[in-house]
Structures are given as C-alpha cells and as structure tokens.
C-alpha cells in the first residue's frame, strides 16, 4: 500500500457494525448496520453503505482493517480483511487522532463500556472495562426507549426536561429496567423517569472510572456519547470536563485505520 491509498475500517460491535472509509488522515465517509446474528453480512452492508456514502467502489479500497468484539469472525473470504486490531488499541489511536490533546477516552457502547488511558502516541497505558452487572448499557437504553414508545434521541431530550430527581435501582440493568417500569406504573412524569435512566447509566460508567486514573483531556465516544443528558450526569459524577468526539460511534473503525497506518 502506498500514500494516498484508500482504506476501510470496520468495527463489529455487539449492537452495530460500523464502517469508515479513509484516505490517510481524511475521513471520506461512513455507514453502519445492526450486527445481528450474521456478522459478515452486517459488515458487508455497513461497508457498502460507507462506500456509497463516498461514491467509490469496493475495488478501489487498498485494504480493510477490522476491530470490535466480532473482528475475528470477519476474517472470511468475502470481506478480505487485511488486518485486525484489538478494540482498546483502535479506540486509543482513534481518540488521539480525533483529539490530539486527549489522554483518556471513555467509550460507552451497546454492550460494553470502557475507559482507556494512553500516551502522546496513542499507546495504551491502562484499560478498565465494565463489570458483568453493568453489561449492556446501550441495549438497556434501546429497550427503555422502546418501552416508552420513543426514539433513543427523544428519550435523551425528554430527560433534559426533568424537574425531579427520582431514584432507580443501580444494581444492574435488569433491576433498573424493572424500577423504571414501576415508576411509570406509579404515574411518575416520563421526563423524570427518562432522567433516572440516564443517571443510572452515568452512575455505572462513573463507578467504573473510579478505578482508573483519568488523565486530561478526557473524551467520550460510543453510541451513548450522543446523549446530552448522559454526558451532563457523567461530567457531574466524575467532576471533570469531558468532550464528546466527532462521529463518536465510529471511533473504533477510525482507530482501526489509524492503527494500521501507524503500524506500517
């Protein structure tokens, strides 16, 4: 591969598979697809969406770099994966690429949330990942939005209108969901329940962050980083400013390409 080659990054996560198309340091386009059971099919759809977004063909790609929890499952002929990169490596490299002063990234994804501290070259110094009871924050959020009959974005916006602090159980997503439904049965304002849900998620992420040294600047990525209310609660709980990265859900895919470029 030579300078100016176009590369694709694929990040197959628990909930969504994301693809980006990059030329050097330039992000040309992106696309995503729910991962479902057929990871390869989801990766192909995400990849073609990204290619369509840029307006180029599959044949113009010089290589594909894969990351994410399902990265090994994507190493099959139809995709022609050039290399795979571990999640935390891709996330750290991607976060530094997107924010050159950052030293810690908190990634809040569909099933896993993690915090990674890295040096000025994006080399990982420390990683912490959620415990079992805090698995599935993103999936929980999607379930709650469905239960409320609103979109995920609407749920976040509703929470911003909350005027009352109502508690929900913090033990795990299941008990939080059970409590949230109970609050609805009690006739509690939907905005307050939405806020309680967001605070529950922020509490879990903040609790995880207490076991890692959060070096400034701290950036946040993953699909849930798009929730303004979640970021508001997180900032208040960890008592530090956090910045949401551009294209937060594509961090892994971008980082995969950057890691490949760095490792050439």
């Amino acid at each position, binding site marked *: 591969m030579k300078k100016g080659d176009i590369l694709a990054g694929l990040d197959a996560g628990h909930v969504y598979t994301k693809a980006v198309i990059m030329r050097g340091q330039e992000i040309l386009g992106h696309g995503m697809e729910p991962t479902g059971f057929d990871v390869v099919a989801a990766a192909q759809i995400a990849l073609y969406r990204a290619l369509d977004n840029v307006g180029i063909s599959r044949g113009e790609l010089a290589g594909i770099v894969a990351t994410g929890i399902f990265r090994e499952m994507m190493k099959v002929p139809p995709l022609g994966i050039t290399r795979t990169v571990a999640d935390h490596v891709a996330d750290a490299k991607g976060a530094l690429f997107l924010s050159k002063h950052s030293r810690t990234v908190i990634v809040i994804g569909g099933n896993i949330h993690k915090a990674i501290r890295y040096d000025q070259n994006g080399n990982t110094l420390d990683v912490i990942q959620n415990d079992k009871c*805090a698995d599935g924050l993103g999936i929980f959020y999607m379930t709650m939005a469905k239960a409320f009959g609103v979109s995920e974005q609407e749920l976040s916006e509703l929470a911003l209108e909350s005027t009352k602090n109502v508690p929900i159980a913090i033990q795990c997503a299941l008990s939080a969901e059970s*409590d949230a439904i109970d609050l609805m049965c009690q006739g509690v304002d939907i905005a307050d329940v939405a806020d309680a849900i967001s605070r529950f998620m922020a509490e879990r992420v*903040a*609790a*995880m962050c207490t076991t890692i040294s959060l070096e400034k600047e701290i950036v946040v990525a993953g699909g849930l980083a798009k929730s303004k209310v979640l970021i508001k609660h997180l900032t208040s709980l960890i008592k530090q400013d956090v910045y949401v990265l551009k294209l937060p859900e594509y961090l892994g895919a971008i980082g995969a390409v950057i890691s490949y470029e760095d490792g050439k």
Partner: protein
Amino acid sequence: MSKKGSGTIIERFRSITENPHEYAKSLQREGHLLAGYMCTHVPEEILYAAGIVPVRILTSHVSQAMTRSYIHETYCSFSHDCAYQGLAHNYDFLDLIVTSSSCIHMGEAFNVWVRFAGFQGKSFLIPYPHIIETKPAAAFMAESFGEFKQFLEKFAKRSIAGEDIERAIKVYNRTRRLLKRLWEFLRRDHPPITGPEVAMVTLASQVMDKQECNQMIEQLIRSLEGEPGKAPSGVRLMVTGGACDDLGIFDLMEHLNHSANLIFIDSCTAARYFWFEVPEGRPHQLQAIAEGYIGRIPCPAKDNVPGTGEKKRFRFIQQFIEDFKPDGVVFLYQRFCSPQPMDVVALKPILDRLGIPSTELELDTTLPITQFRTQLEALVEIIRQVTP
C-alpha cells in the same frame, strides 16, 4: 391521628427518623461523644458507660453506583448504602465508628469507612464468635468486650467502672421493656397506634440517646393508654426478615386496596434489636452483656445450633405468631443477603402447617411500590379466602 397527645410525640420521633444526622449533631452540640455502629451485635451498653452515645448507621436511600468500586456488587444494598454514607462524608461529625464481626456485608461497609472515609484512627472492630450456641462463645465475647472497653477507656480518656456499665445496662433494658410494651399494643384488635408508627419509633430509638428516648416512649405509652383504639382492623400482617429502614414499605402495607394492618416485625431494625435483656446486678457486667446478647433472637447469619440444624429464631417466630396472631407473613429481606432467603425455605413449611399464607418481598435501595402492592394485595386476597 391528632397532633395532640401521642400524635405530638410520634411526630417528634418521626422527625428524628427522617433527620438522624441533625439529631446526632444536636447531641454533639450538647457535649456528647458520638459513635456510629453498623450492626446490632455491638454492645451499646459499653459505649454508653464510657459517656459515648451510640448512633446506628442507617441508609440514605440514595441510588448510587459509587460503592461498586469499593465493595462487591453482590453485597446487599443496605451495606452498599451504609458504605456510601461514609464515602459521601455524611457522618464526618462522628467521633468513632464501631462494628462487630457478625455480618460480612456490613463488615465491608465498615472497612470502606475505615480505609477510604477518614475513620482509620477512630474505629474499632469487635471480634464476635461465628457460632453463638457453643460453650466457649460467652467467654470469647466477654474477652472481646473487655478489649473494647479498654479501647474506649483510652479513646474517651476515662476509666469505665463496673457501676457505669451496670447503669448503662439498666438504661438499655428500660428501653427494651418500653419498646416491648409499645409493640404489645399491636396485639389488640384495635390498637391506639399503628404498626408503621411503632416501627418508626423503634427505628428512632436506634439513633437516640437512650435516656431521652426512654422519657419519650414513656410519655407515648401513657398517652396511648388513654386513647381509643383505631378502627376498622383488617388482615393482620407480620413481617420477618432482614434490616429494613425504608418505612415506606410498612406504610404501603396499611394502604392497600384491602384493609390490612402491620402487627409485628421480626428484623434487626425492629424486634430483634430490643427483644432481649441483659441480666442486671451481676458481679461481672461484661459476662452479663455476653449472656444477654447470646440470648437474643439470632440474626439468620448467626443462627446455627451445631449438630442439630435447629434454627433458634424459629422458636421466637412461632411464639410471636402465637402472641400477635398474624393472618399472613411477609418475608422481607435484602437482595443478596443469603442467610435470610435460606431461612425462608425452612420457615415456609412451618407457616404452611400453621395455615398462615406468606409472600416474599426482596429489598433494594429503591421500593418498587406497584410491584410490592400487587404482591401484598394478592397475599391479602388469599388470606381473606382462607379466613373469610
């Protein structure tokens, strides 16, 4: 209830229960030393004899995840919440924190206070025998209490005489007798006080200076004796289980769609706290305290009669059933407190034999009111079919 007579005193107790920190600080302003204690196996009498007021650490009912980094996820929410009270510095004003090696979960909450909340130099862990129903237990406890006494003498910079401990034993026994009398009002068909009110007074007593507490309960009892009973009476519900300082659940029991009354609570935040006495007038007060604490209704975590598998607590429960005549029993325990639900397995057949229906409610930081209401109303429905 009117605000006159018993109503005024009950409101005072309620205010203390709702604002325990403010009450404790008021004692401190009067010059009292304050010790937080995390388990009812702590012999409060020794603290009191040293001129220190014991204040039970209860929960804040704040839903938080901060403690997940300090103690294990599958420890009960009561212990998580008490640990949080330390980490949130809600009790920084306390002079001392004490617990006994009785409940593992609360032991971890205690460790959090000691290691991370600034109580390292002002804490004491009282070694407590794991199995109480053994011959060496009393001597072991007396020795532990002796070490605790020595620590307190050094801490409070005063010696604790036998008469001081004897006086404290008498004050505490007085509290126990008064609380017992208060609960016994609930044996009546139309008591002048409700179960949730008695539960609230009992909870307040755990954070109060016992002399003040005794005066207030005495006044309350005098007042109640002259008051008419409340009507109508409904299905009589007894609670058995673990620590619960969320009074909302007891209020819920009295506000179902069917008439129901809470008439007894077997838990360490209610009857197990006071339903025993320490022998008075003994030459060796620490031995007497050990004897008293061995004789109390055991916590399920300590209820083990070696070689027999017998549960001593069940004898008490059967006696309470005989005396208070509940129509139904609610097993109310903290999620993740293993000894409590394990007891349910053995207790339920006993209740079945007695023809007493029961249900189980699992406690967390929050109360799922509508879910609990559904379960309780189902229980009351079943009872009404059994005893129309």
